[in-house]
Every structure is written in structure tokens, then in C-alpha cells.
């Protein structure tokens, strides 16, 4: 059987005569094509490699011999399988061996013997093309080659039937691989193969094979019913296979019309059809029709013309400015390309996708870049200040080994500073081969170019990619967003992307912004930049130039801001919350918007300080208008607003009624609030504040400004997350460093003579030296907050500079002179940002909370440790190699002896109860225990705290573990507890405390103690109240209380039982006589006179008592007995009775 499609034989010979002769011999059986040079032949063969049945090549050709040709064929995937026969006038024996060793299929001797030539050629062709029967190693079904060979045979065998070629793909198989891993992806393919074979075996003869990746091909007699059955079978089986993920097949059908089409073309037709249903939720099957074919032809036409168009410069650059959403000003532009062809403008979406497929896009990219550079050069020459322009770059460039060099070449040619050019890559470009891409990006960064990620969120591999690639900015298309972004899923996606970008400190540009709603939404999301018709349309070079010269219109964006959810804003600061919780001061964050104040958060310390059940609502009540005086509120609002501009620390004292549930008194409290303005984001001003109860200090209103460093650090921490931090002393010009910087630059702990010493060390880019000095001059002058970006070497001996954002916050003494400044810095573009963030976070944690002995961040989802920070030598070391349970056990062993706490903590980890807690909404757990320090012998209260938090975007659950000093807290709490036992009016024990004391004593004393219990009240107390008022009644109670305290021993229990009733308990009374004597004496002592402004009167008290001797009477029985005696005494008139 002759191979129908592979029927071309190529003859490559430098001698035309030989070609002619061979052609004569072979043209009856084959289509003959010929070339007189090997390279020329290879070039031409590229066009139709699938038609070639065999190649006959002359051994001796000048420059490029038959062997060279043979080798080249074997290196080309499309020609590898094609048999090559070598023809030569050489003696066959002499060279045959070498030919065969080189991979030649046979040898054709000269002079040609037609029958020999024909025989050998046919033999080789049949051997090659009908030999193919390998199976696909993964799925066991036919390989691509075998499928093609089978189909060719099938076509001949079933010539009279209507044959269909069907392609079957998994829609978005890449995503499947991404979600479940490549191994699982492979398993799915095996499953598909198995399901298909089972299905096809039930019907008539068919061919089936795997074409590559996730594409399978079926050749069978066409029947619509059969194809529908195939689909429903697949859907059913997919559902059985993985019900949690919708595996969607995409089926393309080509019904063979022209049997002379090459089989590859038929396959392409089926696949093109199949592509039509990709990405469409409900379309599974598509048929090839000539429209699709027309599309292909049109694409080919465009491709043919691009070369010419590039040459004729038909591609024209348009510029679209992008706007800062903060300032409303134009800040950079994107270069867009239009094809002006014969007075018609072709938009990029018509030709870019086609060029992308053909790889010609790279040429266009460079064309645009070069024209942008030319335009910028012209601007500079005219004295117009240019803005940075971003140009689009396609993925193919990344595979060009000279890419970075070529770009640098263009920049140099037009003398363009690299910071004026940004490169925009499409996200889909980064799916594979991250190492290669990272390498190219590094080169681009070294040149000084910034890299934007275009169309972020549209592809699949975006999240991991962001961590892996050194990208400087994200561009997101607004397309997802309808008119009401907040209610929509698209809006949620956008906002979560922005939160993530925020976390990574990546600026975001939103493209396609067209209306107010979108601007509102973006402002709210703190998106950095926007681009779209709402701001500016793409404009010609001339209009862009005019805009730069005259200034682009400034947009007033504040008017689009409406009520913003401060909570959401705060949450976008991500893990900063855990910071805040570790600050060693009761603290809260509140926000002001439209003159209304909300509490955003209070920290753990605050909750502890004011009691267990203290809530944010309670705090909110602090300056709720009902509670605060009008004046205080007005002052507070005015000052808080002013603070946004002055950026100074403020304080306010105010009186407030504390809610009852707090342990202490129910009186008015004087609260001192120290607060600072932190940041202004999306229309909300944030403040951090510390609260202090000043009631005890008395002197309300004029207390000196007192501020802790930890508060300042917290403030700084809130402002920046992945940072280096240090102190700067404006008087000595010294910097005291943290460990990190010392290691990076090899400096000691203190660096004198700043900034000169830094500049001398040559880590600052020469051009930035002067701004750097200016920066410190501003600092020394006392500016409250300064911030700037410099090019700084990451290490002392580094060859390149990195963009480094540096900020200082000044701290003032009470005369408002700067005393110290907190400096922070971070690398703006740093691919290890992720790691560093974690590292510095821990760093900060320790700095701002000196009471933390151990802190760890455990990722409960991946069961790994992300960070361990501890000052305890025994626990230090490289945690990276350790499983998180081991570090947990080490910490447990070192700190906790208490068996109960140990068991609790262990079960939290071992039984994964932490996750359960988190799911139930519990994000904070704590366990108190005592630690005995072996070296000092000190016993110390400590607390093991766990903050649970979900990492935005990835959804991993993190446990922040702190083991910290709790001694002070416990003591304070014990103090509070003591306070809680005291009756606030009389200073005696209150009812519960008194009863508790008595009970405790009775319990301890057992049956042995002889003791007495007195109940005392004021006679006619109700009358006193009625006649003289409650205040006087209270006075009488206080007088009685004082008398009682004076008349009993310190060890006796004296308490206010309620109202005017008191309880006294004598421990260790000696005898009944002694008690009786005591009672008589007391009775006398309690005849009292009260002298007040409007009242002067005498009053007496009644006393009842009960004694217990070796009896089993409990407290309540004694009280009942004494009460009964008291009642008896009263009934027997006024006189106290026993």
C-alpha cells in the first residue's frame, strides 16, 4: 500500500544533471522536489515537512556535504523521521558503512540503475512510514505518528464513507495541572484515554491517539449521535472521577470533504473547531466550517503584510497617560500601537494576537520601543520634560538570548535614561520556565528598567508567579467590573488582587477605567494608578507632546470618595494586626472619616488592662457624643484633624463613665489618651492611640506629655512592613543599628558621622548623593516625617544598586525639639521580598515588644515554620530544617512545666484544634503558666499566646505564637481583684468578699475554732434617709464603717453586708463572755452623733450575734442566727439584744 500523503521525494544534488535524471526515474511514482544546495533544501522543506516521504541527497556537495545535510535533518523535529538516502558515485562498499552509521536509510549508487533506485526508495519509504506503531508512553494509546498512519489507512479503506476527524481537549487543562499538580494531570489524561477506548470499542472501527499535551484525536465514521454519546459519556465519567472540579471537554469535529487535504490540515481543522468552545461554559462541541478556514487565511494575509508594514513604518505610536489616583495627576503613559494601512486604522486587537502566534510580534515590540525612544529623545531636545513610558513586550522576547542587550542598545542609541522606559509583559508569558524569565528580568533590572505585569489576573499561574518574579508593578484590566463593583464577583477579585498587591508593596495600575463608579471603587481600594477613557484617551504623538508641554488636566478625585469602611482599610494592612497585638502598651487604632470617628481595633493588651470582656464597643463609647462633654469632643475633633497636617503626637484627657461590666468602680474615670496620626488612605485618616486611666493621679487636665518609644515603633510598624529600622541621633549624627544592617554593610553597631560616612562607603548611587545629604538636612531641621527613594547597593561590595525607600520619623522632647529619629528602609524591588518581610516582621516584633521571649509563625496549612525569633539560646538555631512540631515541642519543654497547660497546648497542635478554633471564629488563645528560671531562681508568670490569622489570597492559616512575660499583668490583675473585693463607699470588704473570707476561715478552722459573727445595722435608717436625704444616709453609713473598723482587730473580718447592714467576724474569740463584753462595749461605741451642714442628729445601732464552738455551723447558718438575734434585738425595742 502506498502512503498517500507522504508522496514527495526530495532530491538534493549540486549537479542539476543528476537531479534531472533522477526526476525522470522517479516522477511516475512520486512528486519530486529538488534543490541544488543542502541549506536551501532545508529551508524549503520547512513549509511542508509532513508531505516528504524520503530525501535523496548527494554525498559530495561543496560546503555542505550529504553528511552535514543528514545530520541537520536528524536535528529537526519535523524531519527526524524522514528517511534519507545517500547517492554517490563512490564505490558502495567504500562508504556504505559510514552512510548507514550516520543515520542514512540506504545508499543509491551512481550511475543510477533505475530499477535499483526505485526499489531501494520504495523499500525505505515503506519501512519507515508503515513501521510506526509506537504507543504514547503515558496513556498507552497510539502516538501521534501512529494515529496519522492509521488514519491514512482508514481513509483508504473507508473511502466511500463520511469520515470525521474529532479532536478532544480538556478545557483549561493548564489550570487543572496548576490546581492538582502535574502528576494528577497525567492521571487525568490516562483516565481520558481509558474512558475513550472503552467507549470507542463499543462502536465501529476507529483510530484513536494522543496528539500531544491534553489533545486526543479520533477518526471514525461521522455520526452526530455518536459524537453526542461520546460527550455525555465523558461528562458522566468526569463527574465520577472528580466531582469537586468541573472537567470540561472541548470537542472539535472536522468532516472530511476533500480527501486530498494533508492529514495535518484535517487535524488542524478539527482542533481549530475545538478551540471555539474553549472558555465557553456551555459549549462542548464545535464543527469546522469554512469561516474558521477564512480566519486562518486572513491571518496568513496579515502576516504576509506585517514585514512590509514595519518597513514602511505603517505602525503608529499612540500614548495613553496613566493617572495617579492619589494626586489626580498624569504620571506616566503607555505606548499603544495602531496600524495605519491605506487610510484605514487597524486596531491592535486585530493583529497583535496573530503576530503573537507567529513570533513576528518580537519585531513589532522592538519597533515600538525604538519609536518611543525616538519620541522621548525629541521631547528632551525641545526641553520638554518626559514622563516614563511603558511599552508592551511579548513573551517570545524572553527566549531571545540577546534581548536585554538589544534593549540596552536602543536606549544607548537614543540616549534615553532607563527609568523613562517601563516594560509591560503579559502575565500569560510567565507560565513556564520561571528560571529563564527570572534571569532575563534580572538583566533588565540591572539596566535600570522597571517591569510591569500586564493583564494580571487573567491567566492562571499568577499567584505563585508574583512571589517568584521580580515585578515592579501590576496592571489589572477593569473589564471584569460592571457598574456596581462592590456587589459583584469581579469586584471581589479585583479587591483581593489589590490587597495582595498591597501586601507585597506592589503598586497597581487599573486599566480601562471609564466611569465614576469605577474611580470610586478604586480610590476605596487604594489602587495607585488608573488608566482609561475617564482620565485620558490614547492620543497621537503630537497631542501627547502638547499635553506634556502645557500639562495634562488634573482630576479632583476626592469628590468621588464616599463612606469608606475603615475596617476594610485596616484589614488591608494584613499582618500588621499581629504586630499591633504584640505592642507592650494598651493601644487602639481609630479612624476618622467625614468627621466621624470609629474604632478600628483595640489590642490584646488593652483588653487585658480593662478587663476580660472589654470590647471595641466600649472603647467606641469613650468618645461617643453622649459620654464625652461637648467641649472635649470639639477639641478632640479639631486637634485630630490638625494632626493630619502637623503629624505631631497629641493627647487629650477626658472623663468618661465606664461600663458596669468592668471590674472596678462605676464612677467617672479620667482617661488620658495619647494619639498620633498614622496614615491617610483612601479618604480615611488612621490614628493610633494609647489609653491610660489617670483617675488615681488626681491632677486632671495638666499632665505632662508622656510617650513611650514602643508607641512610636508601633506607629512606624503600622506604616511600613518589610523594613530595616534603626535610630538616628540628630545631635551626634550617629545611627544605632539593628543586626540586619550591620551584617549587610559590615558596619558596627553605631555608625558615626551620618550621612557622610554612608556616602563615603559608596553604597549610595553617585547621582543620589546630593539628594541623600539633603534628606538628612531636612531630618536635622526637625521635619516630622520624611521619605524618599534612593539607589542604594544591597551590600557593601555589590555591583548594582537597588531602589530603596527610606523614611524617618522624628521624636520630639516636650519642648518640641527632635531628640531621636526612627529610620526605616526597604527595597522597593526585591524578589526575596517575601522572605525578608517575614524576617523583618519578626525583627520588629522583638523590637517593639521587649517582653517577648519567643515568637514563631507557623503555617498550619503547610505545617511549616515561617519564622522563629527568640532570645533564648537553647532554642536558637536553624529552624528551617526542623518540622514545626519539633520546634513547638522544644519551646514547650523549655518554658512550660504545668502539666495541665502542657496537655492543652499539645492537643491544640496534635489534634489540629487550632484550625477548628479558627473556623469557629476564635482567633486568639492564651495559656498562663509559671516559669522557674534555673539561673536566677526567679518564678515568673508567663503567657503563651496564639493569634490565628488567614493569609490573604492563599488562604493559609497562620498561627503567631508568642511566649511573653506576664508577671506585671498578673500582678495588676491581682490588684484589680483585690479592688473588686472592696466596697467603694466604705473601703471595707463588700458582701461577697466578706462572706468568702468567713467561709474560708471556717473551712480552715474545721471543728476547732471558736468564733463569733456580728450583724449590725443602723436603727431607723429609713427615717434618716427620708428626713435628711441619701447623702446624709451615706455619711451615717461611712461613720459606722469607720467605727467598726476601729473597734475590731486587723485580723477580724469587717464588711458591708448591704445597705446599712454590716457584718463582723471575730476569728479566735476566747469565750462567750468575751464576746458578750465586746458586744456591750460596741453597743456603747455605736451611739453616734452626726454633724453636717443641714443636719445634726444622734443615731444608734442594733447588734445581733452568733457564736460557734466545735460545731459544724457554716457561714450562712451563723449569719442567719446573728440576723435573727439582730431582729430580736430590734423587736425588743431599740436596745441591742444578744
Amino acid at each position, binding site marked *: 500500500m502506498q502512503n498517500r500523503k507522504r508522496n514527495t521525494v526530495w532530491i538534493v544534488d*549540486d*549537479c*542539476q*544533471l*543528476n537531479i*534531472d*535524471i533522477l526526476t*525522470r*526515474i522517479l516522477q511516475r511514482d512520486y512528486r519530486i522536489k529538488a534543490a541544488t544546495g543542502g541549506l536551501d533544501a532545508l529551508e524549503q522543506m520547512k513549509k511542508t515537512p509532513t508531505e516528504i516521504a524520503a530525501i535523496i541527497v*548527494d554525498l*559530495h556537495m*561543496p560546503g555542505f556535504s550529504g553528511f552535514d545535510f543528514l545530520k541537520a535533518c536528524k536535528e529537526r523535529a519535523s524531519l527526524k523521521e524522514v528517511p534519507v538516502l545517500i547517492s*554517490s*558515485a*563512490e564505490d558502495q562498499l567504500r562508504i556504505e558503512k559510514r552512510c548507514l552509521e550516520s543515520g542514512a536509510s540506504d545508499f543509491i549508487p*551512481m*550511475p*543510477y*540503475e*533505475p530499477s535499483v533506485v526505485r526499489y531501494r526508495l520504495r523499500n525505505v519509504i515503506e519501512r519507515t512510514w508503515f513501521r510506526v506503531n509506537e504507543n504514547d508512553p503515558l496513556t498507552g494509546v497510539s502516538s501521534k505518528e501512529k494515529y496519522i498512519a492509521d488514519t491514512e489507512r482508514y481513509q483508504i479503506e473507508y473511502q466511500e464513507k463520511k469520515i470525521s476527524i474529532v479532536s478532544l481537549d480538556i478545557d483549561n487543562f493548564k489550570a487543572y495541572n496548576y490546581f492538582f499538580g502535574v502528576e494528577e494531570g497525567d492521571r487525568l489524561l490516562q483516565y481520558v484515554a481509558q474512558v475513550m477506548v472503552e467507549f470507542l470499542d463499543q462502536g465501529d472501527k476507529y483510530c484513536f491517539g494522543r496528539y500531544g499535551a491534553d489533545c486526543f484525536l479520533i477518526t471514525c465514521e461521522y455520526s452526530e449521535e455518536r459524537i453526542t454519546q461520546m460527550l455525555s459519556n465523558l461528562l458522566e465519567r468526569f463527574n465520577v472521577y472528580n466531582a469537586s472540579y468541573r472537567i470540561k471537554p472541548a470537542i472539535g469535529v472536522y468532516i472530511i470533504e476533500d480527501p486530498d487535504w494533508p492529514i495535518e490540515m484535517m487535524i488542524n481543522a478539527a482542533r481549530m473547531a475545538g478551540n471555539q468552545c474553549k472558555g465557553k461554559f456551555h459549549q462542548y462541541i464545535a464543527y469546522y466550517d469554512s469561516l474558521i478556514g477564512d480566519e486562518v487565511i486572513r491571518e496568513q494575509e496579515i502576516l504576509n503584510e506585517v514585514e512590509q508594514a514595519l518597513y514602511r513604518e505603517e505602525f503608529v505610536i499612540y500614548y495613553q497617560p496613566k493617572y495617579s489616583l492619589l494626586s489626580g495627576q498624569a504620571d506616566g503613559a503607555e505606548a499603544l500601537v495602531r496600524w495605519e494601512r491605506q487610510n484605514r486604522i487597524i486596531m491592535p486587537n486585530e493583529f497583535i494576537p496573530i503576530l503573537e502566534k507567529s513570533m513576528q510580534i518580537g519585531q513589532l515590540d522592538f519597533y515600538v520601543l525604538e519609536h518611543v525612544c525616538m519620541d522621548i529623545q525629541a521631547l528632551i531636545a525641545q526641553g520638554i520634560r518626559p514622563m516614563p513610558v511603558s511599552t508592551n513586550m511579548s513573551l517570545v522576547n524572553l527566549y531571545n538570548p540577546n534581548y536585554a542587550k538589544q534593549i540596552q542598545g536602543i536606549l544607548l542609541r537614543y540616549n534615553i535614561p532607563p527609568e523613562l522606559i517601563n516594560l509591560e509583559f503579559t502575565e500569560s508569558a510567565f507560565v513556564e520556565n520561571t528560571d529563564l524569565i527570572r534571569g532575563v528580568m534580572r538583566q533588565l533590572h540591572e539596566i535600570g528598567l522597571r517591569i510591569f505585569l500586564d493583564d494580571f489576573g487573567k491567566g492562571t499561574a499568577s499567584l505563585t508567579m508574583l512571589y517568584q518574579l521580580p515585578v515592579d508593578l501590576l496592571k489589572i484590566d477593569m473589564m471584569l467590573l460592571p457598574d456596581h463593583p462592590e456587589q459583584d464577583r469581579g469586584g471581589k477579585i479585583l479587591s483581593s488582587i489589590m490587597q495582595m498587591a498591597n501586601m507585597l508593596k506592589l503598586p497597581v495600575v487599573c486599566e480601562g477605567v471609564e466611569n465614576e463608579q469605577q474611580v470610586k471603587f478604586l480610590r476605596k481600594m487604594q489602587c495607585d494608578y488608573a488608566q482609561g477613557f475617564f482620565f485620558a484617551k490614547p492620543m497621537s504623538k503630537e497631542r501627547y507632546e502638547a499635553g506634556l508641554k502645557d500639562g495634562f488636566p488634573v482630576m479632583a478625585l476626592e469628590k468621588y470618595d464616599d463612606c469608606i469602611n475603615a475596617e476594610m482599610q485596616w484589614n488591608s494592612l494584613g499582618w500588621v494586626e499581629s504586630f499591633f497585638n504584640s505592642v507592650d502598651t494598651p493601644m487602639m487604632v481609630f479612624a476618622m472619616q467625614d468627621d466621624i470617628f470609629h474604632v478600628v481595633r483595640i489590642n490584646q493588651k488593652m483588653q487585658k488592662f480593662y478587663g476580660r470582656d472589654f470590647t471595641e464597643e466600649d472603647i467606641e463609647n469613650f468618645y461617643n457624643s453622649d459620654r464625652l462633654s461637648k467641649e472635649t469632643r470639639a477639641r478632640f475633633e479639631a486637634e485630630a484633624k490638625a494632626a493630619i497636617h502637623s503629624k505631631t503626637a497629641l493627647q487629650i484627657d477626658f472623663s468618661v463613665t465606664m461600663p458596669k461590666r468592668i471590674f472596678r468602680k462605676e464612677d467617672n474615670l479620667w482617661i488620658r489618651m495619647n494619639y498620633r496620626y498614622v496614615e491617610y488612605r483612601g479618604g480615611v485618616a488612621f490614628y493610633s492611640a494609647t489609653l491610660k486611666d489617670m483617675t488615681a493621679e488626681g491632677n486632671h487636665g495638666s499632665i505632662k506629655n508622656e510617650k513611650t518609644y514602643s508607641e512610636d515603633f508601633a506607629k512606624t510598624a503600622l506604616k511600613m512592613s518589610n523594613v530595616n529600622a534603626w535610630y538616628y541621633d540628630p545631635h551626634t549624627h550617629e545611627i544605632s543599628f539593628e543586626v540586619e544592617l550591620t551584617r549587610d554593610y559590615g558596619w558596627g553597631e553605631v555608625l558615626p558621622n551620618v550621612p557622610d560616612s554612608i556616602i563615603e562607603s559608596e553604597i549610595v548611587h553617585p547621582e543620589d548623593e546630593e539628594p541623600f545629604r539633603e534628606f538628612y538636612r531636612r531630618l536635622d531641621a526637625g521635619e516630622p516625617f520624611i521619605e524618599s527613594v534612593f539607589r542604594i547597593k544591597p551590600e557593601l561590595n555589590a555591583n548594582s544598586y537597588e531602589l530603596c525607600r527610606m523614611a524617618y520619623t522624628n521624636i520630639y522632647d516636650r519642648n518640641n525639639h527632635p531628640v531621636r529619629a526612627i529610620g526605616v528602609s526597604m527595597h522597593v524591588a526585591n524578589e526575596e521580598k517575601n522572605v525578608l518581610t517575614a524576617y523583618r516582621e519578626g525583627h520588629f516584633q522583638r523590637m517593639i515588644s521587649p517582653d517577648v521571649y519567643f515568637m514563631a509563625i507557623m503555617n498550619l496549612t503547610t505545617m511549616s515554620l515561617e519564622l522563629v525569633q527568640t532570645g533564648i539560646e537553647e532554642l536558637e538555631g536553624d529552624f528551617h530544617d526542623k518540622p514545626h512540631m519539633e520546634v513547638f515541642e522544644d519551646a514547650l519543654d523549655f518554658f512550660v512545666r504545668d502539666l495541665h497547660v502542657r496537655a492543652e497546648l499539645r492537643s491544640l497542635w496534635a489534634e489540629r484544634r487550632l484550625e477548628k478554633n479558627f473556623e469557629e471564629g476564635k482567633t486568639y488563645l492564651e495559656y498562663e503558666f509559671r516559669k522557674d528560671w534555673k539561673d536566677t531562681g526567679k518564678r515568673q508568670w508567663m503567657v503563651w499566646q496564639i493569634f490565628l490569622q488567614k493569609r490573604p489570597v492563599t488562604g493559609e492559616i497562620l498561627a503567631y505564637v508568642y511566649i511573653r512575660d506576664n508577671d506585671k499583668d498578673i500582678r495588676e490583675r491581682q490588684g484589680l481583684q483585690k479592688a473588686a473585693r472592696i466596697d467603694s463607699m466604705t473601703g471595707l470588704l463588700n458582701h461577697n468578699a466578706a462572706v468568702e473570707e468567713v467561709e474560708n476561715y471556717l473551712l480552715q478552722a474545721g471543728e476547732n475554732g471558736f468564733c463569733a459573727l456580728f450583724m449590725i445595722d443602723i436603727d431607723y435608717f429609713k427615717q434618716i434617709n427620708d428626713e435628711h436625704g441619701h447623702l446624709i444616709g451615706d455619711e451615717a453609713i461611712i461613720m459606722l464603717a469607720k467605727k467598726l473598723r476601729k473597734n475590731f482587730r486587723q485580723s477580724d473580718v469587717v464588711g458591708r453586708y448591704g445597705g446599712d447592714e454590716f457584718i463582723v467576724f471575730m476569728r479566735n474569740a476566747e469565750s462567750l463572755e468575751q464576746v458578750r463584753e465586746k458586744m456591750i462595749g460596741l453597743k456603747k461605741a455605736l451611739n453616734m452623733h452626726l454633724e453636717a451642714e443641714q443636719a445634726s442628729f444622734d443615731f444608734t445601732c442594733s447588734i445581733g450575734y452568733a457564736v460557734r464552738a466545735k460545731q459544724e455551723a457554716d457561714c450562712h447558718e451563723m449569719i442567719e442566727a446573728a440576723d435573727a438575734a439582730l431582729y430580736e434585738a430590734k423587736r425588743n425595742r431599740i436596745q441591742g439584744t444578744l
Partner: protein
Amino acid sequence: MSKLTEELRTMGCDMDGALNRFLQDEEFYAECYAQVMSDPSFDQLKSALDAGDVEEAFHCAHTLKGVIANMGLTPLLNIVVDLVEPLRAGKLDGMQEKYAALLAERKKYEALL
């Protein structure tokens, strides 16, 4: 049989083999014959020999060998083979003489055109 092929046969050429190769197409054979007589390899061989370039000389001789063999011009082929083998071994000695003999022989064949 055409006049050309008859003549060649009398000069000792393998006309049976050659015509078999040319599928008995005498006209096509005649076309090729004319081409062979003016094949540039003859001149290139001369230049290579003059320049002492053994490799190039071998290549040219080898090309001629193939072409002439295909044409079945046995007497001419014998001279070419005499050139090819020493050149393959890298020898230039006496090659000019043999080339002269080749050209002299070619003259006879050219006369037939």
C-alpha cells in the same frame, strides 16, 4: 537509435545502460549530453589543479565521475577515475597531464554535438 547514441556506442560507451537510465528517452539524453560537455566542473577542476587545491580538485573530479558515469561515457569515465583516485589520496603529481588527456578526449565527444 539516434545518430549521437550510435556514434557513442562505436566509441565504446555503455549506451544500453545509459538509455535504460534515461528511460529510452534519446532526446532527453541528448540534452543532458550537451550539458555534460559544458559542465563547469571541467574548468573548476583545472583551476583547482592550478591552485594546488587537492580537496577542490577531488570534489570536481568526483562530480564529473558521477555525471559521466550516468551518461555511460566509459572511455571518458576511465580517465576521470584515473584522476579521482590519486586526488582522493591527496596526490597532485602528474594530474595536469591527466587533465590534458581528459580535455583531449572530451574534444572527440564535443565534436559529436
